C-alpha cells in the first residue's frame, strides 16, 4: 500500500513535468484518490479512430506496480480487442506480460498502439475481430469510424445520430 502510493506519487509528478511531451495523452489523477486515474487519448491518425477522443478509466491495485492497473474504455469503441459493452481491453501487458517497467503513461501509449494495430486473433469484440479475420477491412473501418463519430466526437454526436436514424448525410 505504502509502496504503491509512493510510486503513484512519482508518476503523478512525472506526468505534471512531462505534460507537453505527449500531446496525444492527457492523464489525470482523481482529486481525492491516487488509485483512480482517467486518461483522454487521441485516436491515432490514419485509423478509423482518427479525430476521436477516448476516455480511459484506471483502477490501480494496492500491489501496484507488481500488479498491473485495471484499465477500460469509458468511451464506446468498436475494436477487436476491446469489449463492446464493458470497455475491457485485451492487451498482454495488462495481464501476464505486465512488469513494473511500465507506467500509466506508457500503458496509454500501448493502448494507442493497439488502436492502430488490432490483434483480431485474440478478440474481445468478435464481430469486429471477425470482420478483420475474414478480410473485410472496409467493413471493420466503417463500423469503427461510425462509432468514433458517434461516441468519441462529442460535438458531432447529434449530427451523427441523425445520420444513423435517417440514413441521410445532410440533415436539415
Amino acid at each position, binding site marked *: 500500500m505504502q509502496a504503491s502510493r509512493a510510486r503513484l506519487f512519482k508518476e503523478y509528478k512525472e506526468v505534471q513535468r512531462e505534460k507537453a511531451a505527449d500531446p496525444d495523452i492527457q492523464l489525470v489523477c482523481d482529486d481525492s484518490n491516487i488509485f483512480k486515474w482517467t486518461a483522454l487519448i487521441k485516436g491515432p491518425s490514419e485509423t478509423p479512430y482518427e479525430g476521436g477522443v477516448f476516455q480511459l478509466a484506471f483502477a490501480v491495485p494496492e500491489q501496484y506496480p507488481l500488479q498491473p492497473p485495471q484499465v477500460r474504455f469509458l468511451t464506446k469503441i468498436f475494436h477487436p480487442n476491446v469489449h463492446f459493452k464493458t470497455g*475491457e481491453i485485451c492487451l498482454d501487458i495488462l495481464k501476464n506480460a505486465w512488469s*513494473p517497467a511500465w507506467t500509466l503513461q506508457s500503458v496509454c501509449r500501448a493502448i494507442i498502439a493497439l488502436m492502430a494495430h488490432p490483434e483480431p486473433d485474440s478478440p474481445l469484440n*468478435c*464481430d469486429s475481430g*471477425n470482420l478483420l479475420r475474414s478480410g473485410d477491412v472496409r467493413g471493420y473501418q466503417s*463500423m469503427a469510424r461510425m462509432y468514433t463519430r458517434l461516441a468519441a466526437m462529442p460535438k458531432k454526436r447529434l449530427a451523427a445520430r441523425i445520420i444513423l436514424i435517417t440514413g441521410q448525410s445532410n440533415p436539415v
Partner: protein
Amino acid sequence: MQNREGVVADGEKESAVSIPVSEFDDWAKFADDDIMQQQSAFHAEEAKKVPFVGDKEPLTMLAAEYESGSPILLEKIKLLGQQYAAIRRTRGDGNCFFRSFMFSYLEYVLESQDHAEVDRIKGNVEECRKTLQSLGYADFTFEDFFALFLEQLDSVLQGNEDSISQDELIIRSRDQSISDYVVMFFRFVTSGEIRKRSEFFEPFILGLTNATVEQFCKSSVEPMGEESDHVHITALSDALGVPIRVVYLDRSSCDNGGVSVNHHDFVPTSGGHSNATSGSTEPVSPFITLLYRPGHYDILYPK
C-alpha cells in the same frame, strides 16, 4: 472458442445498431478474467504447500521423494549426498531461480560477514543502475526495487541498528512485499544486462524463443512469474559479478552406463565480461549452488 465461427453471420447486421447477443457476449466477457482468476487461484493453492523459501531439509528428504522413481535419479541423489548436505526448497511460481539466488546470496553474506563482497556488489549494482538509465528506463520505475535490495544487503551485515538474524532473513524472504520486490530487482538487473550486451545474447535468445532481444526482455525477463533459463542466469551472474553453480538432477546418463551428476558453473570474470570467455579464467568456487530439476530451482548446501 466454439462460438467464434457462428457469430459473423448474425453479428454482422445487428451489432451496428443493437448490442451483440448475450450468449456470445458472456463468453467474451469471462474469458480473460477467468484465466487470470484461475491462475491466481492456482498460485494461492501452490502457496499453501510451499512458502516462497522453505526450511532447510536434509538431502535424504529428496531421496524419499523419488523412492519409487527412476533408478537413475536415485543413483544421482546418492552421489549428490557425497557432496551436499541439505536442500532448501523454493516455491514453483516461476520466480524460483531469482528467489533461490536472493536467499542464497543474502544468507552467504549473513554467515560470512564478507564486507569486501558487499562493497564489491554495491559497485556492480551502481553499474546496473547506470545501464538501465542509459537504456532509457525512467528512474522511478526501478529505483524502489534497487533501494529495497540494498536495504536487505545492509541489514544482513551485523553491528548496525537494522541488522537482522537468520530467522528474520527467512521471515523477510517469505514476506511478499519484500521478497517479490527483491525478485523484481533481479529481473531489472538481468534485463538491463541482456539489453546492454544484446549482440552477445542474441543468438542464445534466438535459439530459445525466436524472439528479438527486446521482445524477450519484455515478455520473458521483466514480468514476474516468467521462468528463468541459462540466458537469465548468465546475465545475472555477469551483471552482479556473482558466480553460480547449477547442479542438474535429470534422467540423463552417460553412454558407458556410468551415472554422474553434471553441474555447470556460471563464472563472471573480474572485468565484468563474463561468461562469454569463462574458459580461460582460473577456477573460482561459487558460493551459490542451486539444484536444477527440469523446470525448477532449489538451493543446495555443500557439506
